[in-house]
């Protein structure tokens, strides 16, 4: 994707985004554009503002400067329009955040039925299909408390997909998982990337970043330090900070 000329309009455009908590500057003039079908992997030390950046994209956080455009519509937190934007952006969290009182199937079906007002039959057919896609067709009737972390995360992915989103945001989807279940989740994410889904993924899985990412964006202290194809950013970064970061991660 990154080799194509940027002829198509970006699905997401972030311009000079400034985010502060109280007076503390968290994101400092961040610019980022994402093309349809692109997989952008966001890397950087913790506390750098990666999660905050994702949360500004779907208006979970108010911003103090700059602008976010999703499909050419401005995203403004705490307005009616942000609800419309969120219908098209799926988010997957580190801690899954499933609704514990609903079965896996209930988790996947809730928002399409209540937010999109689709019929139960229609939603259930789609949900069953999604359970196949995330390889959990046998677990649809289990409650989150009965599922392993890896299974819960795959249900969370199905839940996000059930809204037919045109952009998926992943915030460290495998960081809370036992090592043996990480692969299952990454496999599903790789399938999604192959389908041509537009994804922004915050992760520390360098293997995934290298093989699935179209573009790596390296952030540090609230700024984008450098970005480009994985083989450049991971193996031959220009900036000292990037080199240091990958040096320490790859040494582990």
């Amino acid at each position: 994707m990154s080799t194509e000329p940027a002829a198509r309009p970006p699905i997401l455009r972030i311009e000079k985004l400034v985010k502060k908590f109280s007076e503390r500057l968290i994101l400092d003039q961040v610019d980022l554009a994402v093309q349809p079908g692109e997989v952008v992997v966001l890397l950087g030390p913790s506390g750098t503002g990666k999660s905050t950046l994702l949360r500004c994209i779907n208006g979970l956080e108010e911003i103090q400067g700059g602008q976010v455009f999703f499909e050419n519509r401005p995203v403004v937190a705490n307005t009616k329009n942000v609800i419309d934007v969120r219908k098209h952006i799926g988010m997957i969290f580190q801690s899954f955040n499933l609704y514990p009182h609903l079965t896996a199937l209930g988790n996947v079906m809730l928002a399409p039925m209540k937010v999109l007002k689709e019929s139960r039959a229609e939603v259930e057919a789609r949900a069953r299909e999604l359970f196949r896609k995330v390889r959990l067709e046998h677990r649809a009737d289990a409650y989150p408390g009965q599922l392993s972390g890896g299974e819960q995360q795959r249900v969370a992915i199905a839940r996000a997909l059930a809204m037919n989103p045109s952009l998926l945001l992943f915030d460290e989807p495998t960081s809370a998982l036992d090592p043996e279940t990480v692969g299952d989740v990454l496999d599903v994410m790789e399938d999604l990337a192959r389908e041509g889904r537009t994804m922004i993924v915050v992760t520390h899985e360098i293997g995934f970043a290298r093989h699935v990412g179209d573009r790596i964006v390296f952030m540090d202290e609230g700024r984008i330090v450098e970005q480009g194809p994985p083989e450049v950013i991971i193996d031959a970064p220009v900036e000292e900070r990037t080199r240091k970061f990958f040096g320490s991660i790859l040494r582990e």
Partner: protein
Amino acid sequence: MYQFNLSATKSYMEVLPAAVVTTLLLSGLAILASIFVGIAGALCRTSNVRVLRFIGGAYVELLRNIPLLIVIYLVYFGLAQLGLRISGFTSALIALTLNAGAYMTEMIRGGLAAIGKGQFEAARSQAMTAPQIYRYIVMPQVFRIIYAPFGNLCIGIVLGSALASIVGVEDVTSWMHTVGSNSFRYLEAFLMAGAIYLALAQTINLLRIGTGRWLLSHSPSATRQ
């Protein structure tokens, strides 16, 4: 030795159903009203607005630390002093509601606090509005958490309503006093009234157990946690 004779209370049986209805009405209305007070109180206690949090906290502390009997007196005589003529029944209802509302507030607040913050994030990210989040995510879970203490609280309200007789409410306890002082069959009267309260409390208890069974069969993991 005291000659136990239940049949001596027979002539007072005619007025017993009305007394039971009064007890049921008073405690039923107090339960209903205190649910609303509890929701409002819990929203205050968890509000972002400091003044509301303070008011909620002060209300809970005040009402949980004053005997119900005194609250009933304060409402009945206090409002009369202010020139408000209200019946004993209304006074008792207000006092019971204020008292139970404080416990409801704490119970609902605890239920709200037990819901993981991440679920709100997930629901918001799925374009749910605040009312939808309350209806489909918060309320079902709060209900699962609080149904058991709620049942106990309802029993407490029914038993607490016995104090209403001191401001002239003609409930089961008032019937008991009448039978006792008119026929001198005190022990029989006490036992009868005790049996009635026991039956009411056990009915609530069985409802609570039934609710628990139903919840368990509908969402085992959520109730087990």
